[in-house]
């Protein structure tokens, strides 16, 4: 149903053209998902400085009323907004906050459509192609260290901005995933996590992966170990990418039913559903790529 892409620059801190690189990679595999496109982009971030994005104006409700309600909740939780802007279907706010992000997120989720909240993460996603999203959200000028991208073909659910990837693990700062495949023990896993107090905001199985990993990380399990566990715990066909403030990783199901291919050199690690996406970063050059075996997982940190 999808194509995924991820990139991490090993050098240069937060000054690399992650936005531009991911646009190219996703354009290369747009055939895998023509309906919607999304990006999870990371910069260096600052302590106690939150970047928040919300969908506004995507439903029937007046965006002004939505924004007013968002600001009301932010005020209630002692969040001091220092910058705000409208960007296509997003309302973006930058704010000072040092409290409990999970509590704030759940409160916001009940009143608004949260796209992402993070210190270094911002998710830009909407209906349309990689170039469409770039036009609306200016992805190409985003500088950072790493990021994920996703193109989606809507099948089970409708074509709407909320169903686009990447998925943020609601309440867990800076954790995003993109996923190609299908989790077949979705309801079982979801019930298990709900009993532990987690909230789900879509019926999308990709959100489950995000929350599953967030739960592990919260228990101080390393990302790599969490990925290892996911291969055993999640049933179905999947190739997914995950990113946190400092890390990027992947996992692949035991039947290797969904494609994934990777390229690594001294400067970058890049992963994608198809080599054609990786090759977009190096036009005219044959790459020394590798395809992870079934059940494989790995992580890289910057």
């Amino acid at each position: 149903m999808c194509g995924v892409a991820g990139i991490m620059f090993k050098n240069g801190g937060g000054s690399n053209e992650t936005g531009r690189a991911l646009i190219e990679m996703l354009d290369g595999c747009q055939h895998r998902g023509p309906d919607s496109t999304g990006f999870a982009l990371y910069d260096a971030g600052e302590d106690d400085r939150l970047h928040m994005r919300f969908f506004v104006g995507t439903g029937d409700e007046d965006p002004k009323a939505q924004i007013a309600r968002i600001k009301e909740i932010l005020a209630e939780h002692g969040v001091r907004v220092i910058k705000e802007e409208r960007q296509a279907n997003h309302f973006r706010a930058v704010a000072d906050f040092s409290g409990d992000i999970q509590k704030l997120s759940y409160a916001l989720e009940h009143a608004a459509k949260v796209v992402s909240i993070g210190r270094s993460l911002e998710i830009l996603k909407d209906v349309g192609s990689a170039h469409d999203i770039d036009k609306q959200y200016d992805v190409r000028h985003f500088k950072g260290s790493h990021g994920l991208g996703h193109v989606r073909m809507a099948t089970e659910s409708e074509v709407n901005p909320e169903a686009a990837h990447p998925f943020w693990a609601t309440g867990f700062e800076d954790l995003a995933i993109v996923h190609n495949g299908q989790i077949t023990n979705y309801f079982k896993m979801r019930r298990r996590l709900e009993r532990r107090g987690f909230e789900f905001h879509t019926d999308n199985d990709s959100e489950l992966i995000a929350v599953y990993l967030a739960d592990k990380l919260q228990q101080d399990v390393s990302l790599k170990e969490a990925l290892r566990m996911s291969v055993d715990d999640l049933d179905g066909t999947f190739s997914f990418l995950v990113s946190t403030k400092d890390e990027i990783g992947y996992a692949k199901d035991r039947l290797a039913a969904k494609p994934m291919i990777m390229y690594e050199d001294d400067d970058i690690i890049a992963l994608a559903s198809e080599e054609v996406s990786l090759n977009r970063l190096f036009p005219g050059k044959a790459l020394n790529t590798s395809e992870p075996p079934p059940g494989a997982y790995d992580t890289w940190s910057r």
Partner: protein
Amino acid sequence: MVQIDLAEIPVRRANELIREHGAKGEDVEVLNPDARHHVGVGLISPITVRVRGSAGYFCAGLSDAARFLVDSNTGWGLGDNMYSGSVVVGGNAGAIAGLAIRGAEIVIKGNMGSRSGQVMKKGTLCCCGNANFMAGYMMYGGRIIILGDSGERLGENMAGGEIFVAGEIQSLGADAQVVDIAADELDNIREFLDRYDISFKGTFKKVVNAGKQLRYATREQQVRSIPFYHFSGDCDYWNPKIQEDIYIKSQIGRYRVRGYGGARALPHFSDIAFRKDLSRAGEDAEAVSKVAMHTQIGGKSGAKPLDLTMPVLIAPMSYGALSASTKAAIGMASTLSGIAENTGEGGMSEAQRSNAKQLVFQCLGGRLGWNIHDMNRADGLEVYISQGAKPGFGGQLLAKKVTKELAEIRGIPQGIDLRSPSRHPDILGPDDLIIKVEELREATGYRIPVSVKLGAGRVHDDVKIALKDTFDFIELDGMQGSTGAGGAEVMEYVGIPTIAAIRAALDALEEIGRSGEIQIVLMGGLRDGIDAVKALCMGADAAAFGTATIIAGGCIACMQCHVGQCVTGIATQDPEHEKRYNVPVEAQNIHRFLESVRFQIAALTQALGYDDVKKLSRDDLVALTPEAAVMTGLPFDPSYRDQEREIRSRVR
């Protein structure tokens, strides 16, 4: 050597040029491939194509006779379905390398991905590095040579062929075993490696089929001849059918396999009636000349559509399940009636091609009989995802029917109980499917429509996927559809009824605002022109008949199609039985049946007040039972029951 630069032109144009140069015998060099898909697909000239870099999915796919040299890596499905010719890959190949090859030689200097050599029939797949998981999965023949190590489940469910591994075998798959390699086999491998300049001195472990699962352990029992009406049973509880079912299972100890359609009463077209006064229907003997019935199917993306004198097609049925004579008669009848025939699984025989003026060629997961040359002479291609009789399961052809001739066209060992794969090696989701559809279009130069056959299960999702994957039309098959052989429980209990399927399909399109953007051919237990008109009213663009055409051609509905000893010569490969089938006579019988369908469609359309079948509407229908009303969304109105009962005797 001619140079083609993929940085300058799209793959579609490049493939046209490669074919043009091929026809002239000129070698081609492809520059800047940058892992683009479909390079060289459909090439059937003995030229050399040198790819200067990495190629994407299906490189050299559906080709014959050409020699490909790829400097770096390739994506999934390298050399898909290749007949003769060769590919040498300098780097790694992705999953399912050598998929379904039928004679080609493929050499990969690096590693190869999962499930390589899946359903291959003939030829050699050689990997100089390591092979990933499940190499040789469901292979039917040919040879895989692995100079490095092999991953888990090597040779899983292989039915034929050999796998030679020089390194370690992580684990063997189901029904595979290690045997000693013979001296001449080693010599043959050495000769092969020498020919491709691969220096290797070691020896090999040989893996072949262990012969434990090629046939069902117990034979299918002969069943008593229970009349169909009895078989389907007025009483759904303890009846002769249930009794027999239990008895047979007590003997064979497994699920039963049988032919024909479901025999359980389900909401169907008889539960739907026309809500207009049809007392004059059928009186006008000239109705056919007064109603527009001409229909074109599959032209939406610019391919040449199927051109039908009425909105009717023959449903897909295989040569294999049916005898060659039967397929010939159906082909003739389709031509006489100006409609289209469909190969079903198992390849296109000469008898089918020469007799049917318009023939759709079906592509199934086992790729049995699938090949570029028959694709090129088809009038449409169809990707089979599933069928109404057994959604989610592959076809079955029991050993009695797997004769030498049939095994040859399908590329499989003779005399096995053929259980076709239930899914395609290269279609594991709608994202892979779209790349597959593109490959089929590339191979045939975008000339002919590509359709999808869907068994009615999750119709709501499947139809959206079909639309987004750019198919030209959908063949939608409800659970009343029949089959040559299938698990009895699956036939009776899996899927959703035909009348519910069409509703779900149209609702799905409406939900995403794409109504009318893809044509739907409805099938699954349609019996005559009356059912066809109801299907058209419900929103289908055409109706297809399978079982009805078989019955018109002499089938006695004994439900033993699977046995292979069909007394009418229809569902058999035994020449002694087949000779009872009189092709010209049965072709006329089927043709006459199709003409009766034409009259019924015309007469009813006229009686409903229209001069064109395209004007038929849902508003013309009511449901006679609450179940049918719920499934179709039609108003429940049993007061039309009497008219419905009489209509078959009035309009025939």
